[in-house]
């Protein structure tokens, strides 16, 4: 059981190390890449089953008990995130076999992908705040290299912005950790949760919570800290964009949710209005930015931002239903978003450009109806059309908002939803639908065999998952609401990590 909890970190590490040693053979690297990520999916599903059955799993590294040692704490939310990371990772690995050019692959693309996954999984599993910083750095470091790999001018420009702003955020995170340690003398999140709840010094707690909000907010790309995202996400190869879009900002969201449920629970007087405002602005600016763009990936990049707003909304409302909505939203969003970037890559391969205006004259639909339909599913899901996954995710959030009478934010969420539909329709009309069904003469740049099955497979699988999440929304929402209930049950988390004595100790003096 304890091995299972650390496997999501060890497996990518081993695969990454093996791929570096086998750097001479691209073929072996590809096989290892696909096999290891598929194994990660299986491991993560087993871990999820275990957590679902047994409750929170705690592993103390080197058998040092918390709060002295570092521990991995796997609750339902964490294990759901690991499953999603593994699925995205596997899809990316399969897509990359043909989707990433040989030159990039020979410069250690696959090892970097494994290390990125290791960092992401580690961040989802750890129960120690400094350890969380270290995992952030692990995933950032590999994302820096993945972003710059290939040395194209656009990429380098995007990478400089991305690296600078992420280093700023890391420095703020580190500063917050320093103050946190200086004030409370511990770095274990369960122990911190207990000590923060008991402290009289609310000033420092508020300061700290804001420092964390800014540090993680930069990584999650919330308003007004998101400008690095649309400046960099459209520059690397499509497979890299897809895994970044699916996972990296969500690690920031995960950290915000973790910190603002466990350490600094939402305060209706101060953090809730602030977060609701940030959520509303994030949704609005993201979706309006997307409406003004005409490049496939830039439209999608801005939509990442607007979707982050929905996740923040669920956290800000802070009712069990709203938080379940957030968890459900993340589950839906990671799959859909990664898939949309994959499909942008397919469209680019078919038509040789990802500028929506230039794709126009001969539609992708005319070239490959299958790709067009595969775009349609996640796009409609993103906009929230029933019966796809996005509809239920939004439904839950809207209902949660109405229950506690936050009318304004719900209005914003619904307007943003319509504007999302507008953007998706724009892409659909410009890239997939416009123009005559057949016009061979103008389409010489087209490459009919551009879409190999190995690139279609992950796209089709992710689309199938989107449909399945929609069709089985009931049971999946049930999991999300149990994950949310666990997130709100701070005592349960603390008891699982520190044991029963710690709780009694606190009550007795």
């Amino acid at each position, binding site marked *: 059981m304890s091995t299972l909890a650390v496997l999501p970190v060890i497996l990518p590490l081993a695969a990454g190390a093996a791929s570096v040693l086998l750097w001479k053979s691209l073929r072996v690297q590809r096989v290892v890449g696909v096999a290891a990520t598929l194994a990660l999916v299986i491991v993560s599903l087993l871990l999820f089953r275990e957590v679902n059955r047994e409750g929170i799993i705690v592993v103390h590294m080197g058998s040092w008990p918390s709060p002295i040692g570092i521990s991995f704490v796997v609750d339902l939310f964490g294990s759901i995130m690991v499953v999603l990371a593994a699925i995205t990772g596997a899809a990316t690995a399969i897509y990359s076999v043909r989707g990433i050019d040989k030159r990039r692959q020979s410069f250690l693309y696959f090892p970097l992908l494994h290390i990125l996954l290791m960092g992401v999984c580690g961040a989802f599993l750890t129960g120690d705040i*400094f350890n969380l*910083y*270290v995992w952030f*750095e692990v995933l*950032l*470091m590999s994302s*820096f*290299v993945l972003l*710059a790999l290939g*040395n*194209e*001018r*656009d990429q*380098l*420009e*995007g*990478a*400089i*912005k991305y*690296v*600078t702003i992420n*280093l*700023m955020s890391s*420095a703020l995170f*580190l*500063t917050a*950790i*320093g*103050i946190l*340690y*200086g*004030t409370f003398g511990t*770095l274990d999140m369960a122990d911190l949760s207990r000590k923060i709840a008991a402290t009289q010094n609310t000033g420092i707690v508020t300061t700290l919570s804001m420092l964390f909000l800014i540090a993680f907010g930069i990584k999650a790309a919330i308003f007004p800290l998101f400008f690095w995202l649309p*400046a*960099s996400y*459209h*520059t690397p190869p499509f497979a890299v964009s897809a895994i970044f879009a699916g996972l990296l900002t969500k690690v920031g969201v995960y950290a915000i949710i973790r910190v603002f449920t466990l350490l600094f629970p939402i305060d209706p007087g101060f953090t809730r209005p602030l977060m609701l405002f940030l959520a509303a602005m994030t949704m609005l600016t993201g979706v309006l930015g997307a409406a003004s763009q005409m*490049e496939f990936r*830039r439209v999608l990049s801005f939509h990442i931002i607007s979707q982050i707003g929905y996740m923040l909304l669920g956290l800000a409302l802070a009712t069990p239903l709203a938080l379940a909505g957030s968890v459900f939203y993340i589950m839906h969003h990671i799959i859909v978003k990664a898939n949309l970037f994959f499909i942008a890559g397919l469209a680019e391969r078919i038509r040789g450009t990802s500028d929506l205006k230039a794709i126009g004259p001969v539609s992708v639909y005319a070239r490959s109806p299958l790709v067009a339909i595969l775009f349609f599913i996640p796009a409609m899901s993103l906009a929230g059309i029933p019966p796809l996954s996005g509809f239920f995710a939004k439904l839950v959030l809207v209902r949660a908002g109405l229950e506690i009478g936050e009318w304004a934010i719900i209005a914003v969420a619904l307007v943003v939803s319509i504007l999302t539909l507008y953007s998706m329709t724009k892409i659909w009309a410009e890239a997939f639908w416009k123009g005559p069904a057949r016009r061979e003469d103008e389409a010489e740049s087209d490459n009919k065999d551009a879409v190999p099955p190995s690139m279609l497979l992950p796209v089709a699988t992710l689309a199938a998952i989107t449909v399945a999440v929609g069709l089985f929304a009931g049971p999946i929402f049930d999991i999300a609401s149990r994950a949310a209930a666990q997130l709100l049950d701070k005592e349960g988390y603390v008891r699982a990590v520190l044991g029963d004595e710690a709780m009694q100790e606190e009550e007795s003096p």
Partner: protein
Amino acid sequence: MQILIAIIVGGIFACAIYMILRRSIVKLIIGLALLGHAANLLIFSAGGLSKAHPALVRPGSTSPPEPYADPLPQALILTAIVISFGVLAFMMVLVSRAYNAVGNDDTDEFVNTER
């Protein structure tokens, strides 16, 4: 001592932000390096500044001699230094490549992707 260190940390943060906001990407690197130092120094002082022994257990005893300094901030800083060293090395190569690609170290020239 605590106050002196606090002022120094603030000063370094200010210098770091100033350097990051300059237009030259070479100064950007200096700014980021300073930013890391400021955060490290802050952790160092957050651990408590005191005249104390290193937390090493002498042979024959089971605990370090009192008073001993908190070893954890030092370990944290060590980790942070190693990480920022790696990141800075990468950043230097990145900046040098970007300089070659753009032909200018002025960040205002880095707007091609903004379309």
